[in-house]
């Protein structure tokens, strides 16, 4: 880890400044221009994310920046390792896709400003800035502010339609998110009290096993789990993600819940790489298992398409946490740990693409039919074949069928589980895949069935929006074709002690 700012570090600043500047501009120029501003900012931030990934790849080192030239512990550092860069590129590609899709749903008003487009476009950019701030934050308190930024940008999207159900969902989401942040902050406070720094790298050098570290890490992890909606904190998620407009659901389910997950990885693998705690990791694995089972089983019983997809998110979040018991037991540095860790991260990325595509496909179907009841989907496969195809592609990745990103991710988790002799997690992965197959099939069987009476679409669905959805679903599949070498990007900057095998 370099101990000074690295060349190209200014890119990290731009990754936060550009989207937030877009927010300010949209507010002052008004809702009529918000969409255009977003479309201008999108390629710029995408370019910054790609440049950051390229710099990390080229130098094979962490990109680092000290804000205001104040070195930690007094100042705040921004850092991008391979994981940050990968997540930023994922977020950038996904948000660009969502933005293009949303043009059809939140078009610029002709005369005066309208509420929904202004709020959607400004908050889309705000979420982007907040996500980038989370991915490159090098300071625990700075990360707290970034998490709050993310919460305040995400919650209003849930209740954009102003109905009582979505308002209640948004309020519940907000309360859970606030509880999560305050627990996270409490842990950070204790760490500062014991070690005198909030900087992640300095902290990883000073922290040692003991009651303070344990209580602090447990509190922070619990808070982040509440934000990530891991079982048993999952109840807020389905109504919130299902109630939002389709492009907002896509970003909430695809990216926003991944931010706290990303921070759990930071905590467990970067801050305390020398403090492996197999028992605690097993607990995370068990919660993940419960999430997979509960989420999938409840998804099977849903009558509305968007709720089914939302419950599937609950299950897929469970998978993310299977990597902890597999990458931590019995001690760091085991050859198969990197496989499990990479599998977990790849699951986060491929789920982001797959789920975004599925939510937007569901949005198009609901626009066409005027409802999203699964029982009433008959004939839609004939009317909107491309959309249903995109939904199916996303489903393939969720099930973990080859070839798809979900397949590679789940295969890696499976392999690690078998190789480490923790076969029970392998069973969980397989059962979860079967259940996912069940609920995806449930939808497809309906959608591909012939309608009893001819289907009339309420509104025509533009081909370009369908194309965006397919493109994202294809991304989820293409992730399955990535050879191993680019995956090494993920390992750049990880503490040596946590990396083993793989090469």
């Amino acid at each position: 880890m370099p101990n000074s700012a690295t060349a190209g570090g200014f890119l990290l600043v731009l990754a936060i400044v550009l989207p937030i500047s877009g927010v300010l501009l949209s507010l002052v120029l008004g809702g009529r221009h918000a969409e255009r501003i977003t479309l201008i900012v999108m390629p710029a931030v995408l370019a910054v994310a790609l440049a950051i990934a390229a710099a990390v790849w080229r130098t094979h080192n962490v990109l680092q920046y000290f804000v205001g030239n104040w070195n930690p512990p007094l100042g705040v550092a921004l850092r991008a390792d391979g994981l940050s860069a990968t997540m930023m590129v994922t977020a950038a590609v996904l948000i660009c896709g969502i933005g293009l899709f949303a043009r059809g749903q939140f078009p610029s008003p002709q005369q005066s400003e309208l509420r929904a487009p202004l709020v959607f476009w400004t908050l889309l950019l705000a979420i982007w800035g907040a996500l980038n701030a989370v991915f490159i934050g090098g300071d625990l308190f700075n990360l707290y502010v970034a998490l709050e930024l993310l919460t305040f940008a995400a919650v209003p999207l849930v209740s954009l339609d102003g109905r009582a159900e979505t308002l209640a969902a948004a309020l519940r989401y907000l309360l859970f998110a606030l509880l999560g942040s305050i627990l996270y902050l409490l842990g950070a406070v204790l760490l500062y009290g014991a070690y005198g720094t909030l900087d992640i790298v300095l902290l990883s050098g000073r922290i040692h096993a003991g009651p303070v570290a344990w209580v602090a890490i447990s509190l922070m992890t619990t808070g982040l789990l509440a934000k990530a909606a891991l079982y048993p904190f999952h109840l807020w998620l389905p109504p919130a993600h299902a109630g939002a407009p389709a492009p907002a659901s896509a970003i909430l389910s695809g990216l926003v819940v991944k931010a706290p997950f990303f921070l759990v990885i930071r905590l467990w693998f970067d801050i305390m790489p020398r403090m492996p705690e197999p028992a605690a990791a097993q607990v995370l694995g068990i919660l993940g298992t419960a999430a997979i089972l509960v989420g999938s089983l409840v998804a099977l019983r849903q009558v509305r398409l968007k709720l089914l997809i939302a419950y599937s998110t609950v299950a897929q979040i469970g998978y993310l946490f299977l990597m902890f018991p597999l990458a931590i037991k019995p001690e760091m540095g085991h050859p198969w740990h990197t496989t499990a860790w990479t599998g977990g991260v790849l699951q986060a990325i491929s789920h982001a693409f797959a789920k975004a595509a599925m939510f937007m496909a569901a949005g198009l179907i609901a626009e066409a039919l005027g409802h999203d009841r699964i029982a009433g989907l008959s004939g839609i496969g004939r009317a909107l074949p491309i959309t249903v195809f995109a939904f199916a592609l996303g489903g393939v990745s969720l099930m973990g069928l080859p070839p798809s990103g979900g397949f590679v991710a789940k295969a890696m988790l499976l392999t690690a589980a078998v190789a480490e002799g923790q076969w029970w997690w392998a069973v969980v992965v397989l059962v979860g895949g079967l259940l996912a197959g069940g609920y995806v099939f449930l939808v497809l069987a309906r959608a591909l069935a012939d309608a009893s009476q001819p289907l009339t679409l309420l509104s025509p669905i533009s081909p370009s929006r369908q194309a965006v959805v397919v493109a994202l679903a294809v991304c989820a599949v293409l992730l399955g074709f990535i050879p191993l070498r680019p995956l090494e990007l993920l390992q750049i900057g990880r503490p040596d002690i946590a990396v083993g095998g793989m090469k």
Partner: protein
Amino acid sequence: MAFDTGLAVLVLGVAVWTLAAHDTFAAVIGFVTYGLLLALVWVRLAAPDVALTEAAIGSGVTGGLLLGASTRLRRAEIQAAGEKPGATLRFAAVVLCTLVSAGLAAIVLLLPEPAPTLAPQAAASMAATGLGNPVTAVLMAYRAIDTLLETVVLLLALVGIWSLAPDGVWGGFPGRRHQADSEGVLTFVAQLLVPIGILVGIYIFWVGSVAPGGEFQGATILAAMWILVMMAGLVDAPPVSRRWLRLLLIAGPAVFFAIGLAGFAIAGAFLAYPVDYAKLLIVTIEIPVTLSIAVTLALLVAGPPERAPK
């Protein structure tokens, strides 16, 4: 010591009362008291800057907001009070919360001696900022990016609140229109107090560079004055679509960003200040930031647009 112990017991007592009070309105009164007592605790803990913030925002504006909500929600609160959770859940909650408190208390007693601190480093670098108040140096120099992002957090909260307006009144006036009563006591107070309050607000902000105070505390007082004249009905809240209002809202973060980016050119880093101009640049940032925070806070209290634009 006896005073501190008494104060701590009082804080805990008021907290219990706030939780246990049957009536939500009474609980809110308890919360305001809690905030004021905490402000006193901050003075005892040698944190006057925090004491000012706690009294102004933590107790003052938050309390006002909660009071307003509790009167508007009176009926719903009484209804909902019936849905008390079962005994099992309550018992589990007692066990869990006792464990959390006990764990935290143990850690307080276990914290290392001598305590780690950044005070020497903060003191050593103060000269480079030209400031005399170390807390302001942290907020505006060492950790300026936190403060910058925080101004954006406030702005997003406002966008979130505005997003709750019914579509028909978008661009309109926030909150209810208060009728001016030229004989009324509020009118009298608003006319008498507001000039003084604005003066105090500016003073608190200005003195922040060398003494306890700063942009957040000053801005809160300014916001309170604006809220007072709105409540007295002397002025109406501005329609949310007004260009000048939007400009005021973003002026703070925008100037902050602009000077931060200029830091690349003039001091070699984002949000870095050249030593000779550090204080000048910081004050240049603080003035619009204070204004923006004041306007944002007042509008956060005013709520979403409720009346259509004329």
